[in-house]
């Protein structure tokens, strides 16, 4: 391979010439560039190439010359020294988003050959159909020529420059295409996967994720310049707008997805509100970006990209604090994305230099992130299933409990009804009424009315856990009326100093009275019951005295007493007591109910 030696075209400029012999396969021109920032953009090539300006071009020290959002025009110059035979070399500007690139090639007969490129031109106008800008340079044999490039852009201004031969160009491209192919392949597979899942499962989280992936993929295509090449080669205007719009679009769905994935509405409502606001801003910016200046659009997109990442990271962090499982995958994924996006954003603002990591770290990070998010989605599904199962179990348990409690209260009601509306009671009463009909019809009527009243009242109170003392007394009096007429005796209930509003379980006093009649008052012509109450500190004692004889142990063994027991135990567990014993000319039953200091139990309302 012949070598060519070229020297610099200037005495004072420090950059060395690009000597083709030293780069058999080509390489970056960065070390050989002189750069001049043309602040008013008025410099002409004549002036730029003049000796006057020679010293104004400063040697480039950046690996990739990168100037962020710059309003300036930048001039770059480099010298190519070719000691060998004539060659065709390719000058590649590896940044697809430059608005205007003008190449000044020194013409053989003096003057300059001017070629222009940029993303404001139709794609087909490019010399070489490539997503980067490529100029063919016909390098003469044994020549040393200085070329000038003029850059202007509304967006980020950077120009990674490479000079290579066609084979190298092809080889490099080959490798790049494979890498990009793998990357976009991953995105495509993830997109299709989530699309299918969305159709099968119907969970919208998959849809949002899918839209995020496709948006993100489009964003990357734009950044790579591939979108312009393949998607809209004839719309340079759209090409310029596409990046900010796609950024907003992508992050809009991204926020939606994050909210769904992390279930922020339910778990971290504050985060959810913030995210919702961000989402609204993003949505509003889409139409706005059509009318705002490109510079503003691009810079706000970059700013929002960073904002998006940070907010989402914080939301994820709070979600993680809550112990939400999918948040773990999410956080892991987002670290990658965050790193990539922040780096890219910082490079966009010129804070850090352009580097392989800032260019491709983004894509690598995002690929990893998307895979992790898919795992996160799957994890979310399994968490949801687990929650659903345990919620189901919980609801079974609750409904069982409720059923049991319903059964319990129905059983109590049944006990009450069975005990108090027995055929024995009804038939005996009817029997007596029939006898009265023949002897004294008025009494028959009274008896039947009393029977009707008692039945109606018992049915009414049967499903109440408590009734007022007043109601209970009334029921007892009706019952005594019935008994009086059946036995042709006089039964009465007297009361003294009772708090009629106090609530007690139904038919307790009633049962005690029944017992009194059955066991103690057989011999007497008159049965007088006296019910009194004594209030002690923590309890109330009801005394029911009748003028009968002792009931002895009989009281404690019948169904009546069992009813009293179960009712009292249910209402005042462990806090009640009944004792009976002889009293002056009669028999007394004492019912003691103790109050509990702590509330939460429906007790006698005091």
């Amino acid at each position, binding site marked *: 391979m012949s070598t060519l030696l070229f020297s610099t075209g200037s005495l004072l400029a420090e950059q060395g010439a690009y000597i083709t012999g030293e780069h058999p396969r080509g390489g970056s021109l960065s070390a050989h560039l002189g750069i001049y920032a043309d602040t008013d953009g008025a410099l002409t090539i004549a002036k730029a190439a003049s000796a006057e300006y020679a010293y104004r071009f400063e040697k480039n020290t950046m690996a990739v010359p990168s100037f962020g959002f710059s309003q300036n025009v930048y001039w770059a110059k480099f010298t190519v020294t070719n000691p060998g035979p004539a060659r065709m070399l390719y000058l590649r500007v590896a940044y697809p988003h430059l608005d205007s690139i003008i190449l000044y090639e020194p013409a053989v007969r003096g003057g300059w050959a001017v070629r222009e490129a940029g993303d404001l031109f139709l794609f087909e106008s490019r010399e070489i159909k490539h997503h980067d800008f490529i100029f063919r340079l016909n390098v003469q044999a044994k020549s040393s020529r200085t070329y000038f490039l003029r850059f202007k852009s509304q967006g980020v201004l950077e120009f990674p420059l490479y000079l290579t031969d066609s084979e190298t160009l092809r080889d490099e491209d080959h490798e790049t295409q494979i890498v990009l192919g793998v990357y976009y392949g991953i995105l495509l597979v993830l997109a299709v996967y989530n699309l299918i899942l969305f159709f099968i499962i119907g969970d919208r989280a998959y849809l949002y994720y899918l839209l995020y992936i496709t948006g993100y993929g489009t964003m990357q295509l734009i950044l790579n310049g591939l979108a312009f090449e393949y998607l809209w080669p004839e719309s340079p205007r759209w090409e310029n707008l596409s990046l900010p719009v796609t950024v907003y679009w992508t992050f809009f769905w991204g926020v939606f997805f994050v909210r769904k994935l992390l279930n922020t509405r339910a778990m971290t409502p504050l985060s959810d509100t913030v995210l919702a606001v961000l989402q609204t801003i993003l949505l509003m910016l889409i139409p706005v970006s059509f009318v705002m200046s490109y510079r503003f659009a691009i810079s706000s997109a970059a700013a929002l990209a960073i904002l998006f990442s940070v907010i989402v990271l914080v939301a994820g962090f709070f979600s993680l604090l809550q112990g939400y499982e999918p948040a773990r995958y999410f956080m892991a994924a987002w670290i990658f994305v965050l790193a990539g996006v922040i780096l890219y954003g910082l490079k966009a603002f010129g804070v850090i230099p352009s580097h392989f990591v800032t260019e491709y770290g983004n894509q690598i990070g995002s690929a990893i992130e998307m895979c992790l998010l898919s795992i996160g989605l799957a994890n979310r599904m399994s968490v949801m299933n687990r929650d659903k199962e345990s919620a189901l179990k919980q609801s079974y348990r609750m409904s069982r409990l409720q059923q049991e409690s319903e059964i319990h209260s129905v059983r109590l009601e049944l006990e009450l009804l069975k005990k108090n509306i027995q055929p024995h009671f009804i*038939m005996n009463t009817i029997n007596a009424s029939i006898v009265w009909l023949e002897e004294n019809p008025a009494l028959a009527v009274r008896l039947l009315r009393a029977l009707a009243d008692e039945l109606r009242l018992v049915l009414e109170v049967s499903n109440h856990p408590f009734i007022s003392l007043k109601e209970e007394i009334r029921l007892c009096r009706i019952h005594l009326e019935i008994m009086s007429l059946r036995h042709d005796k006089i039964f009465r209930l007297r009361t003294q100093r009772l708090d009629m509003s106090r609530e007690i379980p139904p038919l307790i006093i009633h049962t005690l009275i029944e017992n009194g009649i059955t066991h103690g008052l057989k011999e007497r012509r008159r049965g007088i019951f006296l019910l009194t109450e004594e209030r002690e500190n923590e309890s109330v004692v009801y005394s029911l005295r009748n003028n009968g004889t002792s009931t002895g142990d009989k009281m404690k063994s019948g169904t009546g007493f069992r009813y009293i027991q179960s009712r009292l135990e249910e209402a005042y567990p462990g806090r009640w007591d009944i004792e009976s014993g002889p009293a002056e000319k009669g028999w007394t039953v004492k019912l003691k109910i103790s109050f509990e200091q702590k509330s939460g139990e429906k007790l006698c309302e005091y």
Partner: protein
Amino acid sequence: MRILIVEDESVAARGLERAIRELAGSRIVSLKVLGSFTAAEYFIQDNPIDLLFLDLQLHERDGFELLTQLAADSFQTIVVSANTDRAIEAFEYGVLDFLPKPLDRQRLKQAMDRFDSVTISSGRNMKYLSIRKDDRAELIDLSRVEYLRGGDNYAMIHISGGALERHRKTLDSFSKILPGNFLRIHKSCIVNLDYAVSIRTSAGSRYELELKTGENIPVGRTFYGELKQRTQK
């Protein structure tokens, strides 16, 4: 007949008494109303009765205990009760009848008619025979009774296995309550046909019923016809 009513509700007692008097007025020798069974026990000791009307709550065990006691006695018992769900069981103990409350005159008449009859009707389902043992009464399965031999005011119960028990009821009395597999074959004998084998003729054109036990029981002339009919089935 000498009647005793045990009823704790005086109004019901009055109604029952009135109904009984209307139905059987002339045949009543005495009618006493008492409010408790304890009082009745004392009364019965000194005053024999023929028919007892008893208001009984049959949902507790006590009721059936009492029935067992009463069934061992010489008189017939009619249970009067508002609770009819265990009426069938009461019949198994050998009560004459079970009257539900409220009282129905027709049913009362049926019960009194039963009291008057002497033929063993097939509709009864008495299952237990109550035997007095000391001061308690015991039940034995009626299916173990082979035959009953009667005296003036008692009956001897022949139980399979050879046991012999004495009962206060007369054969006439038993006729009112025994089930249809029993048959009066003699003025002084009721036989459980389940133990009958065949009719044999003995000297002097007298008939005997051979039992599975090998015993031969003389058959009264007036009762032969029915016996023949029954054993031919």
